[in-house]
């Protein structure tokens, strides 16, 4: 078994890495999976951002009804799986942190700085994204903006990293995992300058007593597989029974649907249940609907999921009034934009706007899964449209403005 050759300049107290498990071939394989995962998160994340800031020339579609459920479910699931994945990836290159000498050249210093940015931004992006989906906000910054632009920093750093490491990546992916040289704090260039400084000659593949390199990949893959299986239940309904680590459980929500903002949290419990409630519709011909007008008019039905930016989603049956009917009555049409206002006294999402395909497909729902809306689901009247992020389906409606 070849000993890792040590460059003479290294002080004795400098960390010496003796494990033979690390190799560029291992890192390249982990990096390939992580890179693909980050690309998936980046693209699905940008799609979701366009829910909140829609492009006027390309509004979000309303069919097929499962698009947002899939893209956002994938975003959160893949992001969650990236947390353990990035830990293994970083384990595989940890000795690089202790390269000697620490700063060999300006180029070397720049490369180290870019890796520091990559590692810090990726860790923060994954961890804050995950705990945000747990409705915990200990950030000290506005999550939405930071998550959006940090995604550019992370993905840009990954692309730059691939450019810098491309020769190593090509080598790593072309080399069998078991055969590749050990990765330690000693750079590979110094390995080949060993002894007489002669041409490198073929040597035996490094022995890995205990777990093999392939074993590391298999064990990490199995652990990450368990994470995916046990967390996916919050969006992949059939997996809910094995959802031991699922954060949301749709069947425990009122009427079989989870709630993101409760009536109590929004401070609308009394306002929403006031028998004098009415919906003001403003347009070229304004009108008002009272609570007694809703039930007779609520004949339109739709079956489509509610999907939250936090990744959870569940299919549901909705009944109510077609929004487009009210828009036409107020003097608008399918090309109108509608502002919806909630009874909520405050909050980032007390209003929303809807236009395009979603406006045509939208319901003002009175019923969910066959029963009158629970107050937590937006009683007496809420917006629901397919492929629309959960928080934009305004609840406890009080006013519509047709433009």
């Amino acid at each position, binding site marked *: 078994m070849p000993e890792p050759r040590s460059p003479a300049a290294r002080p004795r107290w400098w960390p010496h890495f003796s494990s033979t498990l690390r190799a560029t071939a291992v890192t390249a394989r982990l990096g390939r999976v992580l890179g693909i995962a980050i690309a998936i998160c980046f693209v699905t994340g940008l799609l979701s951002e366009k829910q909140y800031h829609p492009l006027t020339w390309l509004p979000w579609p309303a069919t097929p009804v499962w698009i947002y459920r899939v893209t956002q479910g994938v975003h959160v699931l893949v992001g969650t799986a990236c947390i*353990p994945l990035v830990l293994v990836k970083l384990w595989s290159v940890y000795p690089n942190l202790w390269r000697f000498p620490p700063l060999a050249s300006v180029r070397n210093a720049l490369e180290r700085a870019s890796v520091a940015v990559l590692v810090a931004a990726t860790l923060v992006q994954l961890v804050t994204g995950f705990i945000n989906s747990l409705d915990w906000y200990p950030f000290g910054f506005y999550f939405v903006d930071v998550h959006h632009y940090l995604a550019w920093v992370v993905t840009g750093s990954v692309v730059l990293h691939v450019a810098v490491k491309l020769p190593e990546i090509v080598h790593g992916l072309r080399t069998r995992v078991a055969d590749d040289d050990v990765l330690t704090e000693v750079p*590979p260039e110094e390995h080949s300058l060993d002894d007489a400084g002669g041409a490198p000659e073929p040597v*035996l593949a490094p022995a890995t007593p205990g777990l093999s390199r392939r074993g590391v990949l298999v064990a990490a893959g199995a652990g990450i597989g368990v*994470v995916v299986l046990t967390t996916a239940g919050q969006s992949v309904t059939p997996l809910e029974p094995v959802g031991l680590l699922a*954060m949301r459980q749709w069947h425990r929500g009122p009427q079989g649907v989870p*709630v993101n903002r*409760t009536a109590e949290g929004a401070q609308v419990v009394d306002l929403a249940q006031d028998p004098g409630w009415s919906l003001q519709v403003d347009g070229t011909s304004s009108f008002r609907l009272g609570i007694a007008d809703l039930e007779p008019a609520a004949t339109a039905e739709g079956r489509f999921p509610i999907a939250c930016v936090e990744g959870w989603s569940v299919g549901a049956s909705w009944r109510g009034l077609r929004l487009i009917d009210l828009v036409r009555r107020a003097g608008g049409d399918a090309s109108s934009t509608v502002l919806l206002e909630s009874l909520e006294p405050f909050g980032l999402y007390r209003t929303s706007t809807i236009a395009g395909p979603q406006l045509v497909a939208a319901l003002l729902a009175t019923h969910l899964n066959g029963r009158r809306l629970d107050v937590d689901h937006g009683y007496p009247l809420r917006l629901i449209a397919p492929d629309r992020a959960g928080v934009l389906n305004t609840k406890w409606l009080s006013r519509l403005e047709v433009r």
Partner: protein
Amino acid sequence: MTAHAHPVPVPAVGWVRLARRVLGAVGVGMLAYGVVRLLLVAPLPDLFHLLLWLVSALVVHDGLLSPVALALGATLGRWVPDRARTYLQGGLVAGAMITAVAIPLIYLEGSQPPEKALLLQRYGLNLTVLLALVAAVSLALYALRVARDRRSDPAAGPLADEDRRVR
């Protein structure tokens, strides 16, 4: 074990050089866009907190988590015979993957109103179940390996582990 060569720097063939330039430019562009937008959009206190998060992430990961994990690995290498260590390491790696995701869930369980159907499970118990499962699978694989070794070399017996340690 098979023969192999030291990593030879990949020759700077045309496509590698071109791909590096293109990827480098795209990467720097995206990175710069993100940084500039952050600086423009986020208020100063937000940026300060973000910086705090970024630095803490490096310190906690590189200065705390990694050394602890490496120390654990080194301890195992010293005290556990190779054959058993294979399966112990495998189980620990898989278990660590699961635990990393479970810890925030355990910390936050029960923190939300029940209507949200959020964090209502007993994640500590669930993690224990999953780790027990990982341990059971690792043990079963180890038992299979021991049985297989016995069959192929009945004379080796329980001393096989000791032999493997001195290699």
